[in-house]
Every structure is written in C-alpha cells, then in structure tokens.
C-alpha cells in the first residue's frame, strides 16, 4: 500500500516536472498576449501620451459613450466599419475562385504547364504589401506604365487613377488581394483533389459521364465541405484585416474608403495620440472578434465535428 502511494506521488511529480519544462515558453506567451490586457484600463481614463496614468482623470465609460454619442466619432466609426465590412463581403464573392482554379487546373493534362502555373501564381503570396504597392505604382501610378502609354497615345484624358482616387477603392483592394492570394489559396484544394477516390471517376466514365458531368457531380460535391469549413473559419477573422495592405495603399485621397477598423485604431492611437479612444475601439473590436471566433468554432463543431478546441 505504501509503495503504491509512493509511485503515485512520483508520477505526480513527474507530471509537474513536464509542466516546469513548459513554463518558460508559456510565460512568454502570457507576457506578450495576456499581460498587455492591463492596457485596457487606459480606456477608462483620459490619458495623454507622456503623462502617467495616475495623473490622468478617471472618466469611467465616457470614452465608450463618446464613441457613439459624439456625432463626429460616430460618423467615423460607422465609415470605418462600412469599409471593413464592404471589403470583406466583396472578398467573399471571390471565395469560390480558389476551388474553381484548382478543379480546372487539375483537369489539364500537361504536367509541366501545371507546374509552371502553380509556381508563378503562388509567388505573389510571398511578397510584402510594400513591394506590391511599389509594383502597383510602377504600373498604375500617375507616372506609371499604363498612364505613360495613354499619354504617348495622345489619350491625355484617359488617366487611370487606380491608386489615388476614392472611387472603386474596395474593389481595387479586393482585386489586389486576389492577385496576391488566389494561387496560394488554391493549394488546399489541390491537396483535397489529390485525395479523392479515383474509382468514382472511373465508374462515372464507364457510365459515359463527360468531363463537365464528372466535375459537377463528383469533384465539386466532395470539395464543398472544405470550402465551407474555410468560409466559416474566415468569419472568425472578419474584423482582423491587418494593417499592412491599407497602410501601404492608403493616402490622403483614398483615406475615406480605405480606412478599415485596424487602421483606424492605428491612426487614432499613433497618428493623433488619442490613446484612450483608440484602446476603447480596439477593446470592442477584440471582444466582437472573439465572439465571432467562438460562433465560427461552434458552427464548425456542429457541421464538421472538429474545431479549434
């Protein structure tokens, strides 16, 4: 009996020892992901950079109230949310494209052609938005290739203001995202297609099903679950647009349409030093994003049976 207890104790110590090994890296995760939460307290003060928090006036929920009560603030928040939703929803129209891309390309016979297409179309994914902006400037800028050619052809009036106008900004940004990400996003479907049961195709061919019929009745139905899982998980990241793209492409002329929530938080906090306001906006964003993630996770669990946790 005594021996058993000792073994149990030793096992417990061993389990704890494994945790101790993990602890240093776990602390890093906590330090850079959970400790920053103390910054949220700034949202309840009227904080100005360079002053101590203790010297700032405690204002309770005033910052949050101002976000909705103050007409200018409310208008800005509404505009920024419209941009975030607009760009995302427009992007959703393109979500079937990676699947179509993969289906059509895997029907092509030349394996060399396939390889070249895959290699080149994936490359843009590895390029930063700054480089992409520089390339776009070369091609579409006011002194870029397209405008120069128009000028040479004597079509002075036909200036392409792709980068410096407030029109079609959402579409332009979504198209850029597609150019950058389409080839990359299709890889997951290539993997899925490679794993499909070939016997189904052979049986269909014996029955005389043509290429379109095989794609329509065999390939697509089997890829739809993957499509929906990716779609659902992207809902979890609906508000997390990141800033790189919009920071690179944003300027005074297109700001009204390109400023998304993340960029707004940056501009508010770093640009105009309204730390408390920007944290209040960021807080609400984090909370909504977390609810969305939770929702997506639950839906995924119900539909697919698996989830992030």
């Amino acid at each position, binding site marked *: 009996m005594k021996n058993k207890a000792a073994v149990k104790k030793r096992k417990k110590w061993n389990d704890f020892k494994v945790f101790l090994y993990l602890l240093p890296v776990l602390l890093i995760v906590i330090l850079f992901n959970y400790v920053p939460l103390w910054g949220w307290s*700034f949202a309840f003060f009227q904080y100005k950079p360079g002053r101590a928090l203790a010297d700032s006036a405690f204002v309770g929920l005033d910052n949050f109230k101002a976000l909705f009560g103050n007409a200018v603030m409310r208008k800005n928040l509404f505009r920024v949310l419209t941009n975030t939703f607009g760009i995302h929803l427009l992007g959703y129209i393109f979500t079937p494209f990676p699947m179509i891309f993969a289906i059509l390309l895997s029907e092509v016979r030349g394996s060399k052609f396939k390889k070249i297409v895959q290699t080149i179309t994936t490359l843009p994914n590895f390029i930063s938005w700054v480089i992409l902006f520089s390339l776009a400037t070369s091609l579409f800028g006011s002194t870029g290739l397209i405008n120069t*050619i128009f000028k040479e052809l004597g079509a002075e009036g036909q200036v392409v203001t792709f980068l410096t106008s407030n029109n079609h900004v959402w579409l332009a940004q979504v198209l850029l995202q597609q150019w950058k990400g389409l080839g990359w996003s299709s890889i997951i479907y290539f993997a899925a297609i490679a794993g499909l049961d070939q016997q189904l195709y052979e049986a269909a061919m014996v029955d005389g099903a043509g290429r379109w019929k095989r794609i329509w009745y065999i390939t697509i139905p089997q890829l739809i679950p993957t499509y929906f899982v990716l779609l659902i998980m992207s809902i979890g990241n609906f508000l997390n647009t990141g800033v790189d793209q919009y920071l690179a492409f944003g300027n005074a002329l297109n700001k009204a349409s390109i400023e998304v929530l993340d960029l707004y938080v940056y501009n508010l906090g770093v640009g105009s030093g309204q730390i408390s306001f920007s944290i209040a906006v960021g807080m609400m964003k984090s909370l909504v994003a977390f609810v969305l993630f939770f929702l997506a996770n639950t839906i995924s669990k119900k539909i697919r049976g698996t989830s992030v946790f």
Partner: protein
Amino acid sequence: MAGKAAIRKKKKWSAEDKIFNVIVYIIFGLFTFLCFYPFYYLIICTISNTQLVDMGRIILWPRDIHFNNYFEIFKVQNLGRSALISIVRTLVGTSSTLLASAYMAYFFTKENMWGRKFWYRLTVVTMYFSAGMIPNYLNNQMLGLTNTFWIYIIPGLISVYNMILIKTSIESMPAELEESAFLDGAGYLRRFVNIVLPLQKPILATVALFSAVGHWNDFFTTKLYITNTKLYTLQYLLYELLSQIQAASQQIQYETGAQMASNSITPTGIRLTLTAVVTIPIMIVYPFIQKYYVKGIMIGAVKG
C-alpha cells in the same frame, strides 16, 4: 491519378475536351502572365535606361542594358545598415522562433503534463484573441523593447500556428523512437535535441521558410516601434521612400525628386531598384519554399 490518366489516354479527344483544353489554357495562361509580368517588368526596368522607363518605352524587354542602378543604390542613406538589420533579424528571428516553437510543441505532446489541456487552450486562443495594437505597444514599451533590435525577435518568439504544425508532426512520429531513448536514460531535453529535432526536419524546414519570409517582409513592427533610423529594415526603408515620393507628387511635382536626381539616378530608378533588392532574396529562396509548403499547408488543414 495514374489510373485516370491511363483510361483517358485510351479515349480519343472529344470536341468537348478540345474546347475545354483551349479555354483552360487561355485562362491560366492569362492569369499566370498577370502574376509574372509585374516582377519581370520590375527587373527589366532596373537594368534599362531610366529615361526610357520614364517615357514608358520599356514594356516587353530591357533596352540599353546597364547595372548602374545596383551600384548607385548604395548611395541611399542607411541602405547597407538596413540590409544588415534585415538579414540579422531574419536569421536570428527565424532560428529563435523555430527553436522556441518546437520546444513548446514537444512538451505539449506530453499528455501527462500537469494541466496540459488548460495551458494548450490558453496558448491557442491567442491566435484569435488579442489585447489590441495599442495595449501591445504599451506593454512592449513597459518591457523596454521599443527602439531596440529585440522588438523584432522577442514578442514573436512563439508562433502559435507554427507550434501547432510542429506538434501535429511530432504526434505522428512513432512513440517507440522516443521510448528507446527514454529507456537508455535520456532526459526530456536530450530526447528533444537528439531524437525529436532531427526527425522533424521536413516540418521544421517548412516553418523556418515561412517564418523567414514573415521576418523579411515585415515593415509594420518598424513603423510602430522604431524611431531610431539605425534600426530600420529594408522593407521599412522602401516604405518610407514610397511615402516620400507619394507625398511629393501630391504637393509640388517631385520636389524631393530633384534632390534625389543629383545622385545621378532618378527617383523612379531608386524606387525600382530598392524594390528589386528587397524582392530578389524572396525569389531566390522561393523554389526551396515551394518544395515544402504544400506539405505544411496540408498538415495545417488537418488541424485547423
């Protein structure tokens, strides 16, 4: 796949097949050209006569080929130093995040760990939940990381996504391999270094390349945390240059441009060449990435 191809070969091409092939070749040919051309255009512009570039005469092939731009670019202030920062950051950042993420992944595979499930969830949630940009900034400021080189390395030490990839890969490794070492009396660290790491080379290579590209491409960290020009990265230098050019063209045409032109290359030349200098390393490592990324994304797909 082989079976499918064999069956198709027996059949003669139907009209439907022929039309299909033509359409698909055209669509993919066009899109591939669209993806390729901007990079090609960039390179041919940097080695062509800059005057011709500004006149829009360089479209399909380079003319008056010269490599002056690549020598002149070194006159841009801080370029050498920024390149050094970018390279050191990519090397140090990649190797440290790789080691730390793999270390964490290894211990998360130990199912007997005290509170494992809780700690794992606590870690994974951070992929979807963040305190926000400004709170993170305040935190890093408090830790004394702003305006130091370490801001590039330490906050990103653990990449949770990469950790999950490595963990999934370790879990698929036969347990006997580790067990035999355990029986030989090797502790956790010995087993991690001598058995797990060498066997996980493929996934580690994938993760390393992703991480290296991420480090190389990042400019926002510099924008947010760094004011000391000595710590600028190449990407940020390019970003600054682009904003300057844009601001200048919006006010008076090329006010700063005239100033740059005294360096004997035009603003366009500087911009294009700097863009090329930042892009070329990616193009060089890209074939290596390509070998691995499909595998990486498939493991990710299984999990996420």
